[in-house]
């Protein structure tokens, strides 16, 4: 469960986020959508405890995120960042196993349970065949999947993912979002930044539309994805209608006349 109350985040005296009120109960998957520079990643970072809010507060599983020590926080939240530096020749399996770091004592070696968690995470993300590969030789999409596997191996009640499908092909996009949705349906809290409104509408239980550091709308996809909201956030004319095949909403942006 994630809750943000009156959240304000500043950088160089400028407000990046202002008056953000957000509640994501366990068992839900919230899609964070909005135009570039809207503050999606900033909000994710603040919830992940990487940024200290200038006002308001964020609680995760009932505790203030930025007051937790990193080890404690990492047992509650797993975070898949947008970009990760991978310049050293670890194997994909070693990277996945690093997800177990917050659960291991300083002098402890990984035990059978840790190896099982890493193997399950790789199987779930379809990266098992990459286990022995050097991560510096993987493609962007493969790396994204391995980092997701690392976050799954962390085995936390809350999972944050910043554009987890940006480098993936269509099949893997659907697979990853299905995986995240299944996690939510199994009782975890999932918050995911997405650019693709159609995928967001199809897989998320609810959406939050962010623009200029403020929430334009939150709630069920049908409530958030309206032509008026989209015009307000993106400045576009858009058609929103149900898709015959998936049953969820699709958004088609139109060129301005």
């Amino acid at each position: 469960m994630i809750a943000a109350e009156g959240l304000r985040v500043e950088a160089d005296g400028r407000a990046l986020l202002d008056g953000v009120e957000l509640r994501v109960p366990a068992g839900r998957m919230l899609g964070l959508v909005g135009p570039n520079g809207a503050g999606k990643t900033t909000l994710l970072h603040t919830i992940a405890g990487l940024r200290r809010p200038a006002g308001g507060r964020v609680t995760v599983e009932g505790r203030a995120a930025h007051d937790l020590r990193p080890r404690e926080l990492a047992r509650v939240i797993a975070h898949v960042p947008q970009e990760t530096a991978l310049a050293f020749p670890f194997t994909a399996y070693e990277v996945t196993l690093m997800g177990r770091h917050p659960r291991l004592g300083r002098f402890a070696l990984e035990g059978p349970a840790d190896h099982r968690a890493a193997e399950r995470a790789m199987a779930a993300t379809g990266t098992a065949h990459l286990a022995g590969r050097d991560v510096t030789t993987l493609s962007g999409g493969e790396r994204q999947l391995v980092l997701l596997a690392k976050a799954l191996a962390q085995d936390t009640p809350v999972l944050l993912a910043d554009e987890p499908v940006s480098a993936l092909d269509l099949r893997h996009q659907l697979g990853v979002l299905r995986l995240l949705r299944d996690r939510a349906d199994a009782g975890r809290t999932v918050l995911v930044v997405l650019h693709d409104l159609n995928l967001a509408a199809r897989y998320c239980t609810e959406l939050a539309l962010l623009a200029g550091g403020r929430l334009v709308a939150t709630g069920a996809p049908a409530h958030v994805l309206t032509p008026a909201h989209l015009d307000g956030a993106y400045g576009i004319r858009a058609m929103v209608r149900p898709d015959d095949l998936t049953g969820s909403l699709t958004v088609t942006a139109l060129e301005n006349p």
Partner: protein
Amino acid sequence: MPASRPGDPTCRGRRHIHALARTPAVHVVRPRPRRAGRGGRLVRVVRPRPGRALGPLPAWTAGGLAVLLAAVGGLAIALGPVPVSPGDVVSALGGLLGLPAGEVAARDALVVGQIRLPRVLVAALVGAALGVAGAVMQALFGNPLAEPGVTGVSAGAAAGAVLAITSGAAGTAVVPAAAFAGALATVAVIHAIGAMSRGPATVLLAGIALNALLGALVSALVANAPDEQSLRGVVFWLQGDLDARTWEHVRLVLWPVLAGVAVTLVFSRDLNVMLLGDDAARAGGVDVTRTRHALLLLASLLTGVAVSVSGVIGFVGLVAPHVIRLALGADHRLLLPASALLGAVFLVLADTVARMTLAPVTLQTGVVTAFVGAPVFLLLVLWTRRRTR
């Protein structure tokens, strides 16, 4: 997802949109069954190979490298202007330890016990310190090319040591302490520059500037020193050497190096996670700021102590960790102890080569490591460029 592109006919009006809605793009939506293999279905359950997870590898590697170090050390003690047979080396070393050993000529016992053994020990300790400091800097600065010599940290240590000597500071521990302070100040500067300008090349460019600046400082200090004898000359500090190292030098570096390496090992797994970047490391449960500060302090200690007895010896911290990474992977739990041992082996060998070079050619230890290390550095530059392209 197909995005609406300018000029796309489906974007022009309501009628076309409607037409598109009635002819859905089935192939995009419906997941088709795929053949297994590379990139099979996401839910396919395959037991992954355990990769290079730590098994009995660390014990074997450490044991093997320790044996190698002992063998190389024995060889280094046996070789020299006065050759000592391997049997006599063992006997003389046994005698030093108070073991009942065979008879050894007094001259051989003296050569082994008072000249060669302390020099080999200093080489091993300095090599271990530089190997570990290199591995730590590569991880902290996120640059596989970082090491004490390249980053200018060794030059900072040398400047600190020379400053202490020329200002007439007394006491044996003062010089290593000043070298540590010099190394720490340089590390702080690099850290600050890195915080202001991110990018893999920053630390190397800063290293060029710092090496030039601190080298000039050392030259100026030595040139204007009142008593040049106490300084061993500018060459020693700019291009390190292990000539005439004694038990006093061993005593000076033994405990700081052993303690520094041991404490660094405690942070092995944190270093692994920190290689994923600051945000990912913090999200992964590492207190990034505190861990980085502790490790920068340790790398400065190791570099400073090493430089105070050997001058600036470059490339050990580059060669040792890279050979280990190529052979055994990047896991610091294995990389750090193995780099310490291999750094020791490398420097003992380099020093033996420097010592054995026949007159009229004179080579300093730092020259030999540079002959090996500089080509390795160039290969790594080409290699990392190709990879990141």
